[in-house]
């Protein structure tokens, strides 16, 4: 087994230590992420998801514990900390509120420029990143503030993708978008992951999305890592999830009900699996 791309051990983080607002945001969190994995992070609001993400690219310094990127502690050396910013790309919630440049092109180029790349390399990356998120050549030259909400979001994501991070972390990338916009963004992320064999970690409140897309789920609850397992396994703990203020995908819920009514169905958590399961049942009946 090769070394995991990201390894977090016994991570603790306390906000505003020594004030009345002191708050433990992360409590002894440990996990490892392998190259190319698609990880979903779910948890109730305030469970520590956003804090965790900012730890992974060195924006917040852990109170205690270690974060290894490719086997190296990102806080052991200033250079490594700065590199971690580029190697682990972080897309914040509502990233469109961080656009500032005069043109879309220049905004996407902000990250690569900070990396100190050559002009040709920056140009290549900007165009490639724009391609991943479906921003056209003409749109590159307009002001980002003239675009629609969904397009702004794509530009902001392209701004991080252009740094070609090995690990791409996104905090609710589809929040507040219409269904078409959501689907588009999720496809963009997937196409980047495929093309660069990148690792993706995505915070989401949509159980359907994480069930369909991710290989593994990290479930945060009350500053602790409550579960670390593939979606199929996580969603068998329906009651536990509900007690954490989370839910299971609707289709899983329906099939659990079906089973309690006596139907011979297995657990499913995506529409596709549900279709296959229904086909199997119908097929079985036809032969009987």
């Amino acid at each position, binding site marked *: 087994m090769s070394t995991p791309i990201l390894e977090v051990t016994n991570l603790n983080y306390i906000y*505003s230590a*020594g004030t009345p607002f002191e708050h433990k945001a992360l409590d002894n969190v440990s996990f490892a992420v392998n190259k190319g994995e698609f990880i979903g992070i779910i948890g109730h609001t305030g469970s520590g998801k956003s804090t965790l993400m900012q730890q992974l690219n060195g924006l917040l310094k852990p109170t205690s514990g270690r974060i290894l990127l490719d086997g190296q502690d990102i806080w052991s050396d200033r250079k490594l900390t700065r590199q971690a910013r*580029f190697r682990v*790309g972080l*897309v914040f919630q509502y990233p469109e*509120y961080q656009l*500032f440049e005069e043109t879309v092109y220049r905004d996407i180029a902000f990250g690569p420029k*900070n990396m100190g790349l050559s002009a040709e390399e920056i140009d290549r990356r900007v165009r490639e990143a724009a391609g991943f998120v479906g921003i056209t050549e003409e749109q590159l030259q307009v002001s980002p503030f003239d675009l629609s909400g969904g397009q702004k979001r794509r530009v902001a994501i392209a701004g*991080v993708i252009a740094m070609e991070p090995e690990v791409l972390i996104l905090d609710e990338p589809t929040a507040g978008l219409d269904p078409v916009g959501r689907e588009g963004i999720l496809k963009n992320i997937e196409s980047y992951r495929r093309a660069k064999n990148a690792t993706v970690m995505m915070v989401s409140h949509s159980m359907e999305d994480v069930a369909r897309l991710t290989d593994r789920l990290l479930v945060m609850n009350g500053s602790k890592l409550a579960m670390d397992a593939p979606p199929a396994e996580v969603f068998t703990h329906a009651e536990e999830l509900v007690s954490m203020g989370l839910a299971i995908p609707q289709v899983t819920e329906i099939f659990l009900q079906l089973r309690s009514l006596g139907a011979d169905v297995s657990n499913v958590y995506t529409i596709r699996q549900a279709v296959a399961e229904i086909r199997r049942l119908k097929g079985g009946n036809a032969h009987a």
Partner: protein
Amino acid sequence: MLKDITLGQYFPGTSPIHRLDPRTKLILLIVYIVALFLAQGWVGYGVLLAFLLFTIKISTIPPRSILRGMKPIVMILVFTGVLNLFFTREGKTLLNIADVIIVTEGGLTRAVMMMARILMLITGTFLLTYTTSPISLTDGLEALLNPLKKIGVPVHELSMMMCIALRFIPTLIEETDKIMSAQKARGADFENGSLMDRARALIPILVPLFIGAFRRADELATAMECRCYQGGEGRSKMKILRYHLGDMKAFGMGFGLLILVGALAALGL
């Protein structure tokens, strides 16, 4: 971290200071400041310091938070101290380097006193904003300024503006923090480089921040319109300000302090 700027932040609590009427606190702050400027000698300052420490003690505000709030004024403090130390020439000379740098006894006393005055002034003011929520603060201010309505000053509008401004300080700080994190995640560097580089590094923060502020202002205006806001005309209050026993005691102590410090000053202490 930006979060450490506590200027104008309210610490919720139920201490006797928190419970005072905002008008009492505003008037007593003025009384305290007047006393601070009346004080002439060490005894006067000592009395004021004792009063200040006593107030901090019963306000249950952690002293560390107060100290942290001092950070932004350190420069002013140092500047005042240095100016007074080197440019006041009174009394015995304590230090003389080549007739250029001369420190006198009078200068030293003056420097220490000026610094103490600024420090105590700021701490007293902080104590007001730490123990009074922005809403009750503006309520108090509006009530105190009410007589000015007669000469056409738009008191309600002014206090509403102040209330909104105060209310949005933490929000804007939070937003700045978020934007800074996001730009840092794209490799922006705010700590290194020349002065010009650093000034330029502010653009990616300021542009989104201003756009956000305008967006918020717009949303707030719409929300106020939707609730038929039309200014102070015929507006009633949910919380009517009333003086209680605690306020009387506080007034007694405050004016007692003023008289005491005034008397001490007259005696030259």
